[in-house]
């Protein structure tokens, strides 16, 4: 899947909103839309910025960068958890970089834990790197790919079958992120 959101660089991009007239955005050929749904578009990173809160699951077969709050599972190839990020849920990927807060399982071939990381939950890996100062409360097991592959990041399967379209639905989670960043 291409990117869900993009900024030119980083997350705190208050001024990154497109200044051009919206009505002049180039049209999307039908094949392009199909390509997006099939998930075979270019590998631009998907960015969840600090001001964004996601309640639900994220899937990508490319890079994901998280700086906001996620309550749900994340599946990607390269997943980066930024310093201010707060993830409640499991993270699956090939390479996972953690500098923020994670509550849940991390399962990846390569896991890199930075000194600002705060992890509560098990880490299933093949190769693990931990910087001094990181907080880890959980089991680190070198068992990536050993037991059944069903826990390995599955491929996204195109648009969802039945999204919830309930009106006035209140989220159960915490309050939204701060900051005013565009995404």
């Amino acid at each position, binding site marked *: 899947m291409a990117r869900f959101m993009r900024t030119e660089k980083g997350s705190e991009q208050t001024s990154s909103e497109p200044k051009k007239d919206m009505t002049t955005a180039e049209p999307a050929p039908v094949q392009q*839309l199909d390509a997006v749904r099939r998930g075979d578009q270019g590998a631009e990173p998907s960015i969840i910025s600090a001001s964004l809160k996601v309640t639900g699951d994220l899937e990508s077969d*490319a890079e994901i960068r998280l700086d906001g709050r996620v309550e749900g599972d994340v599946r990607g190839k390269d997943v980066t958890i930024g310093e201010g990020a707060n993830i409640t849920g499991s993270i699956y990927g090939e390479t996972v970089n953690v500098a923020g807060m994670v509550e849940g399982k991390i399962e990846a071939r390569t896991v890199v834990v930075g000194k600002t990381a705060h992890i509560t939950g098990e880490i299933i890996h093949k190769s693990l790197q931990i910087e001094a100062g990181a907080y880890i409360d959980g089991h680190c097991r070198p068992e990536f790919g050993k037991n059944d592959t069903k826990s390995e990041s599955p491929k996204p399967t195109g648009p969802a079958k039945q999204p919830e379209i309930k009106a006035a639905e209140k989220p159960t989670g915490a309050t939204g992120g701060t900051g005013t960043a565009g995404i």
Partner: protein
Amino acid sequence: MTVYGRLDSTGEIHVHGIVAGEINAPKVTLWPDGYVEGKIMAGEAHIHGHLRGRAIARMVVIGASATIEGQVFHHKIDMAKGAHIDARFPWRPVNYFEQLDQQLQQIR
């Protein structure tokens, strides 16, 4: 990227991938390569991609590349020639959106 669930933001949201669920932000832009199935609730909604479901925004801008199936609740609307529309466009007074906005802000 595909998101299953809801997105709440105090900033802007640009959708280039797939969202199945609900989006709630002051400004939402659905780009031509984006697809939303569900609901967009925003102060300002710019739709250039494919929306299947509802958009609820005081100001709605629909680009020529848009495809919309569903309903668009609006106060002001701008629609480009060429957009593919299979939708209802109920108009709502300003106070409808003001009330909604207050509720949404608490969620954000």
